[in-house]
């Protein structure tokens, strides 16, 4: 049986015992049953034939033996850069894409064998939802509710309630395509929330939203979790969002899960290292010996150097660059404790493109 403390280890066996908040919470009342179990999932997109002016596209292994488990009532995240295979994974979980091999169980149902059951178990918000663009916000939510099997009256009532919950009532009669990107996304979230489902699969739901709208979305999701025990699977490449709202997170890279733990547990993997960002006005002052010494460890992005250092080394580096000729060449610097982005890089994540905002 599961105990409160769980073993959380990196790929290379770098062990780190962490006590997960979710784990201890569940330990008292026994562990929550599984909402999603994925075992050894493989999906390869076939090679494309060469056409005029386009070379042969190699087959892409978008899910490369993915296994993970999500408990009921959990807000579980899939974090990784664009192209890591997150959307391919959720498209298989929602029955839109058939895996080549592997097993998917959602709320106790075998979705590889019965993909059509997905629509009756979960609500899915895809990255792009053009189907609703010309409807008014209220009609989009109401129609979606009816298509989730609600009767006309219930659909209207629930759509109205969800719009009020998300602060969309003033926009109820506006067509989606006349809204700003963030407002439109919020209307899509409203359509995903109508009609009760035990699992919400949300692919980057808060893209383009202002902080107020984001808060409304997370409040609405929290309410469903508290009142109905709703499970949420969230796809994101926003590390700040991942750190604040997720119970657990699976870090995905090149179709594999490279780590899976609570955000705190994952951050503990990178140890005490802190991140120092230095932004130079133009050329870095390499004639300063301390700066020249840092050059080898720096990851360069334009005028920005990103360094991962022990706290002592970071203090020394800050002292060096905030005085004398180095300071004259320095435009800005930030010193931060590790984020999930650092975890991602420390685990050998190959892509760039995680967002911090």
């Amino acid at each position, binding site marked *: 049986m*599961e105990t409160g403390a769980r*073993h*959380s*280890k*990196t*790929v*290379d066996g770098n*062990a780190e015992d962490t006590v*997960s908040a979710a784990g201890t919470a569940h330990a008292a009342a026994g*562990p929550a*049953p*599984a909402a999603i*179990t*994925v*075992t*050894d999932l493989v999906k390869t997109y076939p090679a494309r034939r060469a056409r005029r002016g386009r070379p042969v596209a190699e087959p892409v292994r978008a899910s490369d*033996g*993915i*296994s*993970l*488990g999500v408990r*009921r009532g959990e807000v579980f995240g899939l974090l990784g850069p664009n192209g890591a295979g997150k959307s391919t994974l959720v498209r298989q979980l*929602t029955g*839109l894409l058939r895996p080549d091999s592997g097993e998917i169980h959602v*709320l*106790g*149902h075998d979705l590889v064998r019965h993909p*059509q059951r*997905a*629509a009756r*178990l*979960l609500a*899915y918000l*895809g990255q*792009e*939802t*053009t*189907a609703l663009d*010309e*409807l*008014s916000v209220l*009609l989009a939510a109401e*129609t*979606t509710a*009816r*298509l*989730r*099997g609600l*009767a*006309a009256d219930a*659909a209207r009532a629930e759509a109205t309630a969800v719009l009020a919950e998300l602060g969309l009532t003033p926009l109820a009669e506006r067509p989606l395509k006349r809204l700003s990107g963030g407002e439109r996304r919020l209307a899509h979230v409203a359509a995903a929330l109508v*009609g*009760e*489902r035990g699992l919400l699969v949300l692919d980057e739901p808060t893209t383009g939203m202002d902080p107020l709208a984001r808060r409304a979305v997370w409040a609405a999701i929290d309410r469903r979790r508290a009142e109905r025990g709703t499970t949420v699977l969230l796809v994101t490449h926003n590390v700040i969002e991942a750190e604040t709202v997720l119970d*657990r997170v*699976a870090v995905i890279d090149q179709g594999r*899960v490279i*780590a*899976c*733990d609570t955000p705190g547990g994952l951050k503990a993997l990178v140890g005490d290292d802190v991140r120092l960002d230095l932004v130079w006005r133009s050329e870095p002052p390499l004639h300063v010996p301390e700066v020249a010494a840092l050059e080898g460890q720096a990851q360069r992005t334009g005028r920005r150097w990103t360094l991962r250092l022990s706290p002592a080394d970071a203090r020394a580096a800050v002292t060096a660059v905030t005085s004398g000729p180095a300071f004259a060449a320095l435009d800005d610097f930030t010193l931060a404790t590790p984020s999930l982005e650092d975890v991602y890089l420390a685990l050998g994540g190959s892509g760039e493109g995680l967002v911090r905002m």
Partner: protein
Amino acid sequence: MRGVSTLSAEAGTGRPTAGGGEPVVGATVPEAAEPAELAPAARLWPALSAVYRAQLSRARVARIPLLFVATFQSIGIMVLMRGVVAAGPGEEARAVVAGASVLVVAFVGLNLLAQYFGQLRAAGGLDHYATLPVPPAAVVLGVAAAYASFTVPGVLVTALTGSLLFQLPLTGLWVLLAVIPLSGAALAGLGAALGLLAPRPELATVCGQLGMSAALLLGVLPPSGMPLPLQWARDLLPSTYGVEALMATFEPAPDWGSVMVDLGVCAAVGVVSLLLAAWAYRHAARR
């Protein structure tokens, strides 16, 4: 079923790994005690009417300018043809008015619907419907019905204008009540299938345009003067039987038997065409 299985989210092999010395990333998640209850699926008619209503509301905003284009195009063709075709219930005049009226249905049902589904599919919009528990036929039929009903005012205006322009009897125009839904079903089904099966949205648009051009040429011109291959092509076009039925009612003494046969063929073509569209939808939604 019961029990605890250790599921690891382990890199590399990805196989479930028992606890112990092995590197395990992830958590022990027990098997679900019992499967969750499935939410009810939407039934065909409520789902169809919800899609129909939603589509009609979007059509009101987005499609009115296009309906004007469709109607003016048909009226323009009739005005042009009036220069070379004599008024009165001759075959040519009847073909022009009937063909131009059904052309409005072809423009909206075939051309615009092929574009709509082509774009919906390309932009991933089908995912929205595919992750809702709706019968595929409800989506296709709801959209097609909305597009077909949207052609009603255009067809009525065109048929009335044409009848007056070519001095044809108005008494048989009630047959439009059958011609619009039946040819609407046939053309909209074909348009939806083209949009859903075309590998690229541009191809869907081209196919829709070609279909409409065919409906124009093969519908407006009188069939008796056509070379044989064109007559065959005309027989294959789903809109032809609606045109034939309407043409017959412009005669001074319509042969109602042949009108009914034409409408029957039109209905059969409509059913086949909608079945094709529903199949195409399933094919496109589950890639």
